[in-house]
């Protein structure tokens, strides 16, 4: 018997429109919802993606909310669901629940200088915000991007990186831990980019997304630049199984990351020892 009662766990169907190989391990998936609606996300939110028969997993949305019609997910092949996604072709069907979570506090950023510090795959969620900011460029102050990757072959969105680098209104610096023979740019971990920039600590909002080990060092740099705890934002990766505050997997201390996060200010994180 078909049930008329709505369920938190019922996904909406979406179709793969375009699939691009970004690096050896990451693909960019462009999707649209089959019912024709826009996803309606805020930068920094995530969706639960179902590969029917395999499972469901959370992914941040990498496209900007300012670019409607379709949305994009940047996915590293690392587990069952992501392996199945990587096997998909344009026209393949997945399920989508969400968007979930709080997203980046863009209203607090308007009129201020912005310092973005993505590391590795952390560029995926941050790209959503960066492109929104660039689409609404006049309502923000300086835009500084410090991006670090392990090696040149792991750099994501290389075309966009080149565009950001070419813009006069973006200060873009990139570094890799391990250069290859063609690399002529900066070498070193992401914190080695900090001496290259000066910021006005009273008017800067910093947003960093990357692995936990990076957060420990990047936050230290941001604080030493004089940026206030409450103006430093981080996005946390947790195992959000349900996305709706029930299953318990994403809980850190008293917070369900899927509900109160995944974006937190450093002020909030200081109260959450399990965060980083």
């Amino acid at each position: 018997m078909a049930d008329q009662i709505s369920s938190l766990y019922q996904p909406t169907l979406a179709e793969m429109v375009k699939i691009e190989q970004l690096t050896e391990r990451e693909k960019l998936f462009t999707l649209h919802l089959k019912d024709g609606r826009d996803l309606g996300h805020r930068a920094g939110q995530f969706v639960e993606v179902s590969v029917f028969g395999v499972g469901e997993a959370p992914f941040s949305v990498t496209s900007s909310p300012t670019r409607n019609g379709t949305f994009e997910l940047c996915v590293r092949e690392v587990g069952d669901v992501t392996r199945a996604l990587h096997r998909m072709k344009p026209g393949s069907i997945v399920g989508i629940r969400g968007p979930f979570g709080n997203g980046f506090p863009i209203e607090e950023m308007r009129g201020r200088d912005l310092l973005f510090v993505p590391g590795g795959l952390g560029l995926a969620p941050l790209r959503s915000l960066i492109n929104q900011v660039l689409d609404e460029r006049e309502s923000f102050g300086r835009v500084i991007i410090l991006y670090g990757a392990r090696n040149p072959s792991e750099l994501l969105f290389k075309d966009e990186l080149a565009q950001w680098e070419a813009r006069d209104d973006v200060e873009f610096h990139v570094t890799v831990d391990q250069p290859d023979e063609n690399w002529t740019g900066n070498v070193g971990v992401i914190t080695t980019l900090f001496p290259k920039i000066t910021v006005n600590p009273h008017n800067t909002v910093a947003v960093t997304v990357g692995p936990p080990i990076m957060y420990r060092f990047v936050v230290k740099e941001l604080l030493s630049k004089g940026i206030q705890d409450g103006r430093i934002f981080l996005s946390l990766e947790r195992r959000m199984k349900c996305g709706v505050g029930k299953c318990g997997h994403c809980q850190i201390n008293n917070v369900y990351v899927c509900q109160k996060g995944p974006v937190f200010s450093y002020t909030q994180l200081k109260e959450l020892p399990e965060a980083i």
Partner: protein
Amino acid sequence: MSFKAIDKKDMSSFVASLMDEMEVVGPVAKDGKFVFSPVKDYAQLRLDYNITLLSPKEYFLPPEETLLRYKLGETVQSEPVIETKPRVILGMHPCDINATWLLDLAFSTDNLDTNYMEKRKKALIIGLDCNQPCDEHSFCKSMGSLTVESGYDLFLTDIGDTYIVEYGSPAGMELLARHKGAREATEADMARFRAIQDAKWPKFTYKLEMSVSDLPNLLAISYDNPLWEELGEKCLACGSCNLVCPTCYCFDVMDRLELNLKEGERVRRWDSCQLPMFATVAGGENFRKSRADRLRHRFFRKGKYLMEMFGKVGCVGCGRCVRACLVDIDPVEVYNTLKRTCAPRGWAERDVAA
């Protein structure tokens, strides 16, 4: 409020009449212990049970439950699955009624979980008071769950050859009107009822050395207590405490494909925060790596986090976790040890009524 009474000799026909209308779930004996189980025959019912191995939460949150069924093909057809049937859970003790109340809050706050709530809405709860502790492990009195404020439809108290019956809801009142067996309680019944009530409280002696409302503050100053490391050394991280806990509700979600590869379902299954995989993310990071971290998380959830989220403590003092624990980790000892070891560092001593 008027009290009704059902004489034990009339209980069998009352329960038989309930069975005609819906599934009756109640305590039955199993391998020398007790479990909640659907009952077909009144004679199976063991309303004299002390405690069941698992709480009746499995009737609202089954150990494994289908959330979706889908068909694969050109496109995907996916339908939510919400399986419910009318049932009465008979003989739920106050601890389990309190636990159900907490689960109701968890599954209805912010996002309504219809898989749980539809089962819950279709169920009637007939509580049964405890006139003595289950055994030496129960500490329900300390947790404020030897009594129930609400969350039941009818509530029974055994006064010898009769049950005193209280209403907890209009549905309970209707149930009593529809099924024969109840009569008005007499003055003599009520005198025995009051005597039993008075006599039972001193029998519950195993207790916290603090008020339950102090637990969040105690834990707030105990995050770095060395006790967690000590317990982490002992704990086997087997997850038994989670499985038997009436207030544990965390779950994992997985897909299962039929052998024809054309149909499948998504199920949720009870999970345990004590297992290493629980908080591990795809990249391999685990934010509660050690057993000590995970054990502390469980105690904080029960004693602090759920209280902050729902205004109700996450432990009802049923003692099931202690009975299931292979290395005898006992919440009462844990909290009391925290209190003793915290005292020199600013824990305000308070008198706690016996």
